[in-house]
């Protein structure tokens, strides 16, 4: 026992970016814990107990360099966040559990393979196939392209503080792991392409969604794409950009999900078209929402601008790169700006703003804990926006880095004009809210596709799909094998002489092979 304990303590590595990331993780968790104080009403004790377990295990995941403790702690993170989903629906718990553990099995396989190839500690891995295997392993957990299918349904259905935890930090753990294993000099082309696909696809989906939390979940995937792209690029500034983007997006998305919980309680709806008089009803939440969306959209003087600028500057310079990154920035700006447009611009009457504010100030209850959480998030975004070198010694070289703020300001203004033009002329891309965005629905669609190859679509009972389809297939196949092997008792006994004969003639049989 003592030996394991010593190994555990010795496996911590306080080097490079990771202590900084661990600190940010702690701050984000505390923010969600504050926000949950009024949101979670039943079984509060258990919620906070799970939060503590989650917090300790994320620290281990970020800091350890031992495969065993890393995997163990990550499973603990998964388990604790899984049970946090129970405050919304047990169905989610089941789905999340199954998905995360199927992801873990790939990761476990990858870790074992890495171990077998001589990488006994978590560190830079040079072999490209092994990198590929580990990227696949974290894919399911961190929502890489094509493995992200579970992320929007689960993150949008979870209770708001839990969505904040999941979107703000849990999905980042995979990228922190990639920061450890991908060599800084070379990067990984496959990861770069995946990141690009994620940014474009999920950005497009975010633009098309009417539900605030689904939009936030898709934008999470899209922003994760930037991190994947940065790590895939390789190079010192790309990695700094990835770290900074992890932090920036962590603050922004945590704040946004916390405020989405407030909006949801305020309006009883998650559809962005329903939000009226947002600014006067909840001034501070509005400010936090605007600032965080500005950070997502990479407006100058926010955290998101710095990180995205670093990522951009690490690419090989040229016209094509500039154009592509300009368009990617536009996409982020569009989906972030669209929500702000619906919340604060479209059909809003600001003539009686101050009177409303005064009236509402007396009318609404203000929770101190939530205000504190939102203020922390805003503070984080602003500090990193103005002083990107602030968070730690490791990033101190960023103080001399020229961030080309004027170019950024120019781009922001172009984006602003362009998107304002688009919104006014297309009535803010009003799209019907998608119903039934759930994993069962995906399964239904997939099965209908399979079935539809031969005939018309069929209504599956997706609630019991495991029992009726998946399990029955396994059950019947194994039943066939069982019935084939289990003949009647005479045949069963006949195996004894057959087996003896095989053993006695084994020398001759063996010599044939």
């Amino acid at each position, binding site marked *: 026992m003592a030996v394991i304990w010593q190994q555990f303590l010795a496996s911590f590595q306080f080097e490079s970016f990771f202590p900084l990331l661990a600190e940010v993780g702690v701050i984000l968790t505390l923010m969600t814990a504050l926000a949950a104080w009024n949101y979670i009403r039943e079984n509060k004790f258990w919620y906070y107990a799970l939060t503590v377990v989650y917090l300790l295990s994320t620290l281990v995941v970020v800091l350890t360099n031992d495969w065993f403790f890393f995997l163990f702690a990550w499973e603990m993170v998964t388990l604790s966040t899984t049970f946090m989903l129970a405050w919304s629906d047990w169905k989610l718990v089941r789905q999340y559990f199954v998905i995360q553990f199927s992801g873990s099995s790939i990761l476990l396989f990858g870790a074992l393979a890495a171990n077998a190839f001589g990488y006994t500690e978590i560190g830079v891995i040079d072999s490209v196939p092994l990198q590929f295997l580990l990227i696949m392993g974290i894919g399911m957990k961190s929502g890489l392209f094509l493995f992200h299918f579970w992320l929007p349904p689960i993150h949008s259905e979870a209770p708001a503080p839990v969505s904040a935890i999941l979107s703000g930090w849990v999905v980042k753990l995979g990228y922190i792991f990639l920061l450890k294993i991908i060599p800084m000099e070379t990067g990984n082309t496959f990861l770069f392409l995946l990141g690009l696909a994620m940014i474009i696809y999920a950005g497009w989906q975010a633009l098309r969604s009417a539900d605030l939390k689904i939009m936030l979940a898709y934008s999470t995937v899209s922003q994760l794409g930037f991190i994947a792209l940065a790590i895939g690029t390789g190079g010192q500034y790309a990695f700094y950009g990835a770290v900074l983007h992890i932090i920036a997006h962590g603050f922004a998305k945590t704040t946004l999900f916390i405020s989405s919980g407030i909006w949801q309680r305020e309006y009883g709806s998650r559809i962005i078209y329903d939000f009226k008089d947002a600014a006067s009803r909840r001034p501070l939440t509005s400010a936090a929402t605007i600032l965080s969306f500005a950070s997502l959209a990479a407006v100058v003087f926010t955290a998101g601008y710095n990180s995205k600028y670093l990522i951009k500057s690490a690419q090989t310079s040229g016209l094509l790169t500039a154009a592509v990154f300009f368009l990617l920035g536009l996409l982020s700006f569009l989906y972030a700006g669209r929500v702000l447009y619906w919340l604060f611009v479209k059909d809003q009457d600001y003539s009686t703003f101050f009177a409303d504010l005064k009236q509402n100030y007396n009318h609404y209850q203000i929770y101190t804990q939530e205000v504190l959480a939102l203020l922390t998030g805003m503070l984080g975004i602003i500090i990193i926006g103005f002083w990107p070198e602030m968070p730690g010694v490791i990033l101190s070289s960023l103080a001399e880095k020229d961030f080309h703020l004027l170019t950024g300001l120019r781009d922001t203004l172009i984006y602003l004009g362009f998107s304002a033009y688009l919104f006014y002329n297309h009535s803010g891309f009003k799209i019907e809210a998608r119903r039934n965005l759930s994993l069962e629905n995906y399964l239904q669609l997939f099965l209908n596709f399979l079935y539809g190859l031969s005939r018309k679509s069929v209504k599956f009972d997706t609630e019991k799909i495991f029992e009726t389809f998946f399990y029955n297939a396994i059950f019947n196949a194994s039943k066939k094998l069982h019935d084939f092997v289990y003949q009647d008792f005479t045949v069963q006994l006949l*195996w004894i002489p057959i087996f003896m004969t095989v053993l006695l003639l084994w020398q001759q049989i063996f010599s044939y092979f």
Partner: protein
Amino acid sequence: MDIKILFLILVPLATAFLIPFIDLINAKLRRFFVLLGILLESYLIISIIVNNFQSLKKGDFFLQYYLGGWQPPIGISLAMDGLSLLFAVITALSLFLIVIYSIGYIGHHEGKYYVLYFLITAASMGVVLTADIFNIYVFIEMLTITSGALIGFKRSQEASAAAIKYLIYNILAGLLFFLGVLLIYFNLGTLNMADISQNFASLESGIQLFISAIFLTAILIKMGIFPFLFWLPKSYDTAPSPVTAVLSGVLSKVYLYIFIRIFWTVIGFETLVTLNLDILLLNLALLSSFLGHVFALQSNNIKRLLGYSSIGHIGMILAVIMLNTEAGFYGGLLHIISHMFMKAGLFVACGYLLQYTRSHAYRDFKGVGIRNRSVFIAFILLLLSMIGMPPLLGFASKWYVLMAFLESGSFFGAFIVIFGSLTAVIYYLRYIAKGFEEVKLTEADLKEEIFSRPLLSVLYREKIVSFITYAYTAIILGFGLGFRFFDLPLRMSIDSIINVERYIELVLGG
């Protein structure tokens, strides 16, 4: 000469024979007498460990007793080395827990039950301790007959059918074993294992092959490896829960011990290698493991399912031992220990959970978890350990098994380990989900429930029964965190498996 190891066999034997006389005096005394017997047994084991702790640490632990004072090649001797000690300790611990469970669980014909139970205890101790191959045969027959009677203990039609099937298979196996012993005696003129081991290489290779084949068939039948797995699930299903726990937890492990003793100490692994049988056996065991897990998928009966998964696990253990590497023995022995506790604990928990259900079928498992919440949670923990969840003992042992397979490059074996865990998730989750389903009892259901079941085995002492379940769960949890505790005994027993010369020298010369 240490008479304590003789008493390890004599105490349960005497308990078994005295129980009927105690019954004549007062039937209520029986329970205390049974406890006394098993406590005495535990005291003996503990005192052996404590007295020889220094030599255990140094790694030269060896105890011997000559029956009647006759020296080994002629007389019968009992010998205890590291491997025997490990098996004796875990067998005694398991039997100790199960006997306490039986005090709560068995509510009828208790006298007969305890007689048979203590005969099993005596016989399994005897198998583990003896240094004489004919003695092993005698004790195996004792195990077979007593456990056959216990399988048919419920006296229902299925129970009798299962017991008869079990007896046919196992007596055939015993017959084959006896044939092997006879062949050895006629060819070498000795029955002492060390003596046989010294002279076995001098035999012709034809005779060697025949003897190995006969022993192999006999022991594979006893363990339930692939071509002979048919008797196992049926008898696990119909026997009362404590008996199933003994069958799966103790007997299969004792047969594994016999396998190791005969094929490493007596016949020698080199013989198997020169006969090319090791590759055949390795792949056969893995195939058997595969089939066990696949069959478990289709089972609609929880106890049968556990039986199939036992086949899977024992196949895996046999395969990892057949690798004949140090890592293989380490993983195999650790998995023997963990499987012993997990499976016995699961059957014990099943006995509690299935007390009021109509049958062991899947549909009757509905609502079991809601009715007995805490025991069901313990049950789930044990299931997770079977799957191989990290903080539990099952994970540690599976990890070592997997590492042993990877180390020796047997990728089929590594695949089987992971395949076993994945299929286990599928077939166990189904039962866990069913256990938490709400039951809506209708009038017709209630009537059927009442009339279909002669409420015979309603638990006698519920507290004891649930306590033993928790005890097993605590063992799994505790040793899951502190599996390094087994490091010393495992190294010691691996040492005594590999150093055959030392065993021969000590048995014959000491």
